[in-house]
């Protein structure tokens, strides 16, 4: 017996119920609910939910490590099986219950969602204060939190998928929140459709598991419950137990499909193009959904399904490669963007790439820990950026900022802290998480150490582009009168920023691990029951080396940025002059949007147009018309016999009579 079922059930019910309550209340009452109420209700439910998470965390920690995972069934969702009855054979149909799992991984995610989410809700109270859609905004935000919690708590693949696409909808609604901006609407649609592709992949993966998963005895299980899946996925005594042998076709396909879902959610190549556009949404949305929580769900998925990926090395390798590749690509792009939010968005893509990479190589706790710290500092960066945008009156172009450091006494240091953490400067949280992650990359996974080398490169780029932002935006002279008249943000918007700054600075201690006296960090040991633990010390010094090189690279990137944008020692347009194609490639985001538009969207629309213009009228309707015209023609021909002339009537009559006479008289029948 683990933490009491009742407690888990009640806790889960509260976790899911509170935000849902907020959503229903706000959306059903709508305008009837005054902004004053919503201001408290919206963030309130989330913060209370966070309190619940804390309680559950404590309860879980109070347990021995062995039984920190509890699964409870909330209600029976579908039950198609029919028992055998009086000779009428029964059937094994599809069954699914709404069950939730409370375990360390779920709790970490829930903590991030409700904690960081709560802070961002508070922030939004200030940020959205003037907006007409204040209530609508909080309704969607609460819906998002609910969906996200469904996603991470679900103990059933179907409900994981349900949460998965509810999240997609919430993000769509929030991206297209300012629905009168065509650009926002388009971005929302783009995001949603990419998400749906991911959902489809997950659904197919679910089908494959449902059809193929066998128990130890080799009997088909027909289940989609996650605990059962993970319990049986490994090779058993029976020769085709689980999902077949390690690296088998089925399990590999399942892994790939799962990763497609993850990639869609986490904006990994090739489904990454929606994330930058998603910045059309309000900044808190970017902070909550597109930095802290939703986009990291892909990492969560891969980690959750690590038993499957451990069965499918090929799929895992694909995951790792795609992750690191995306990280590099996003880093390169981030160096040349001028929209402050887009820079941060690409850095998000890049960092998540690193996490995916880690999950791919099997460094699960490292991935999740980077997910945690990233949630802190990236939310921080977005909120700070939000303050900046708020300050300069909605301006997002770096080239029209500058000199803000002096006017925003709190936001500036907070942003810097976030940047340091992101860049992985020692003793900031990012340093701990990222260096551990990369250290694993040196010893684990496919094609070592080359993927690690790429990761190191990413380090340079990361610290370069983020400090590029720092220097362009906060230093130098104001580039516009708006920047000149900038003012610090109101208190309600500052408080969350500062809290997050604190967390971003110190969160690293959770992961302090030193080779000898503390081999495994607290965080890793906390997650251990779920994801196990990886050997981080293959050879003495290997990770020491990794640490040194990685740190050096981060600092190098910082220095480079300083040389370029502060000392002006290196001209900023060096690349664009020397290798313009490289600059264009980066500035145009490797032309993915154009490629997809030309390769997918246009052909489909053209096909549809072809159907509408040709197939429907010419072929389908045409066939009908053809029959009609044929009959009409026949009608005209027949009518031409009816000449009205007596003798012709008589002739035909006589002819047919003669025929009849011959047919019968000569007995031809």
């Amino acid at each position: 017996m683990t933490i009491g079922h009742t407690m888990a059930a009640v806790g889960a019910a509260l976790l899911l119920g509170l935000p849902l309550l907020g959503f229903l209340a706000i959306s059903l009452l709508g305008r009837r609910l005054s902004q004053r109420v919503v201001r408290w209700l919206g963030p309130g439910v989330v913060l209370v939910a966070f309190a619940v998470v804390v309680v559950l965390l404590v309860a879980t920690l109070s347990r021995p490590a062995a039984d920190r995972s509890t699964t409870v069934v909330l209600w029976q969702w579908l039950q198609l099986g029919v028992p055998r009855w009086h000779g009428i054979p029964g059937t094994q149909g599809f069954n699914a219950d709404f069950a939730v799992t409370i375990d360390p991984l779920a709790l970490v995610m829930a903590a991030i969602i409700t904690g960081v989410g709560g802070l961002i809700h508070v922030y939004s109270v200030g940020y959205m204060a003037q907006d007409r859609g204040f209530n609508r905004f909080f309704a969607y935000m609460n819906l998002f939190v609910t969906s996200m919690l469904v996603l991470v708590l679900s103990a059933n693949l179907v409900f994981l998928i349900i949460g998965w696409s509810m999240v997609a909808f919430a993000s769509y609604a929030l991206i297209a929140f300012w629905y009168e901006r065509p650009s926002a609407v388009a971005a929302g649609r783009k995001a949603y459709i990419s998400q749906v592709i991911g959902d489809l992949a997950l659904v197919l993966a679910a089908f494959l598991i449902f059809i193929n998963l066998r128990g130890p005895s080799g009997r088909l299980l027909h289940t989609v419950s996650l605990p059962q899946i993970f319990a049986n996925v490994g090779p058993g005594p029976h020769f085709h137990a689980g999902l077949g042998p390690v690296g088998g076709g089925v399990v590999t396909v399942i892994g790939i499909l799962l990763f497609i879902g993850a990639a869609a959610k986490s904006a990994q190549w090739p489904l990454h193009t929606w994330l930058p556009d998603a910045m059309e949404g309000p900044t808190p949305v970017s902070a909550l959904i597109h930095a802290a929580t939703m986009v990291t769900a892909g990492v969560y998925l891969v980690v959750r399904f690590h038993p499957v990926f451990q069965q499918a090395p090929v799929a895992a390798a694909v995951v790792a490669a795609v992750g690191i590749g995306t990280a590099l690509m996003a880093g390169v792009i981030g160096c040349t963007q001028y929209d402050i939010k887009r820079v941060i968005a690409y850095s998000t893509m890049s960092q998540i790439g690193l996490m995916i990479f880690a999950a791919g190589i099997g460094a699960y706790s490292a991935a999740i820990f980077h997910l945690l710290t990233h949630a802190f500092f990236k939310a921080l960066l977005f909120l700070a950026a939000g303050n900046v945008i708020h300050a300069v009156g909605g301006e997002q172009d770096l080239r029209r900022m500058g000199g803000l450091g002096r006017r925003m006494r709190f936001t500036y240091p907070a942003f810097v802290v976030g940047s340091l953490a992101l860049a992985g400067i020692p003793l900031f949280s990012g340093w701990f998480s990222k260096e551990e992650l990369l250290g694993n990359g040196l010893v684990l996974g496919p094609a070592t150490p080359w993927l690690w080398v790429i990761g190191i490169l990413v380090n340079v780029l990361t610290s370069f582009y983020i400090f590029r932002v720092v220097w362009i935006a906060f230093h130098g002279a104001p580039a516009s009168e708006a920047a000149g008249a900038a003012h610090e943000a109101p208190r309600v918007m500052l408080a969350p920023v500062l809290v997050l700054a604190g967390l971003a600075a110190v969160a690293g201690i959770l992961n302090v691990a030193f080779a000898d006296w503390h081999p495994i960090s607290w965080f890793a040991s906390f997650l251990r029951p779920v994801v196990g633990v990886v050997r981080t010390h293959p050879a003495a010094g290997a990770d020491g080396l990794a640490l040194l090189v990685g740190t050096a690279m981060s600092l190098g990137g910082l220095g480079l940025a300083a040389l370029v944008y502060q000392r002006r020692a290196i001209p900023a347009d060096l690349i664009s002059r020397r290798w313009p194609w490289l600059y264009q490639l980066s500035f145009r985001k490797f032309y993915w949007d154009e490629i997809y538009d030309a390769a997918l969207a246009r052909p489909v629309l053209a096909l549809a147009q072809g159907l509408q213009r040709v197939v429907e009228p010419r072929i389908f309707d045409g066939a009908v018309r053809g029959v009609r015209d044929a009959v009409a023609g026949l009608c005209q021909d027949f009518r031409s016999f009816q000449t009205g002339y007596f003798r012709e009537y008589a002739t035909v009559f006589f002819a047919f009579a003669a025929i009849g006479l011959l047919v019968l008289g000569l007995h031809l029948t």
Partner: protein
Amino acid sequence: MTGPLGMAALVAAPPWYPLHFAPASNLVEFLPELVVAAGMVAVLVTDLFVGPTHRRRLPLLTGLTLLAALLIAVGEWVGHVPGRPVFDGAFAADRFGLFADFLILLVALAVTALSPAYLQRRGLESGEYYVLLLAAVTGMMVLSGATSLIVVFLGIELLSIPLYVLCALNRDDALGQEAAIKYLLLGGFASAFLVYGMALVYGETGATQLGRIHQVLLHGSLAGRTDPMLLAGIALIGVGLSFKVSAAPFHWWTPDVYQGAPVLVTTFMSVATKVAAFAAFLRIFSVTFGTAQSDWAVPVALVAIASMVFGNVVALGQRSLKRMLAYSGIAQAGYVLIGVAVGQPDGTAASLYYLAAYAAMNTGAFGILTALSGRGEDCDDYEGILGLARRQPLLAALMALFLLSLAGFPLTAGFFGKLFLFSAAIHDGEVPLAVWGVLTSAVSLFYYLRVILTMFTEPGGAGEPVQVAGMTFEGGAVARAQLALVRPALGTRALLTLFAAATLVLGLFPALVDSLIQGIHVVAG
């Protein structure tokens, strides 16, 4: 009985021996026909002696005559010991014939009821009309009960000759005259074939009574073997009867005559004639020549298919309502012929049911045209009924019902008619017939529903033409055509409603009429 024995019997009892000829019981069997004939004479005489002022009485007298005949027929049906043939096997008042008589008399009654108003509007009031009507009815009833080739011929001519005249009822109408001439000449032409065929059959079997012919084919010298002359005779008889039931390719007179004749006459002609002729057709082919069915089934089936295809397809292109219904009548004849081709007994029963349904729905459809026809001309073109649903909702609804029934929709008589015919066809392995029937029924939807479409489409103003299912209506023409129409009197509408009710009853409770058909027996001579 056949050959020498039969001759011996005949020699022993010479035909001119009066007692052998017409004992009273024969007259009883023959009573309905006698009544109608007597009524005809009475009407004739009355017409001679009463002045024009009392012309009113004639329809009344006619109606009473028909009613009396109907009651007697019913009486014969009820108190009937399965009828033995009378007049030395020349005629039989069996239930088969009586069933046809019912239909004929009912249609005739309806027509008589419609007559006065119509004739008065068209200025065609005349005593002869009723005389000829009754004469034709007599002929039909004789035909439906005829069990001898001689009497069959007699009946056919007796019903045709008055109809020739009736077509030309309107002496000022060139079209009517033309129709009459065509009908007359083609009719005579066809009768010649018929008689010659009868001569051949008679020559081969040595008998004119259907019963004896049947016996000869069954047990006599001809049993089992197929005799070319006999089959030639059957073929010629078939040609003659196909002409009367207006089945393609012997239908040529039908559209012209139906269109040319006054719509009232067309109503009578299109239903009653067909019923009588089909009675003879069924009796002669399905029963008398039943043993030779393997020989004539295929040709008859071909004729049926030809009629269904030709009628339905050509009806698509008609802009004249009468003509459209004429072609639809050809198609309907084709459907009934399915039953003939299938043969005894289920084919016969199905045909009878369809004839009943046809009597209800076709009389209704033509009756509505009659009722609408005004002073100037018959209600014959679509312009007239454009938007009828708004002007005369009742008539439009009834017309829709009749047309849907002709198209064979459920809830209506036509549905079960077709159902029984197709089931008979399928059961006897004549599936192609059923398939053709289905295909052509689908085609027929177009022109039946087009009429409904027209009735339910609002006529545009004077300026803009209206488009309905491929037909264009000019505002002016519409207005003119609609002025010609009349709003029928209450009685007329009630009568038509009765026919609609009959259509519905036949479509909802087929067992009612079917139970009658169950009681049927056919006397073959």
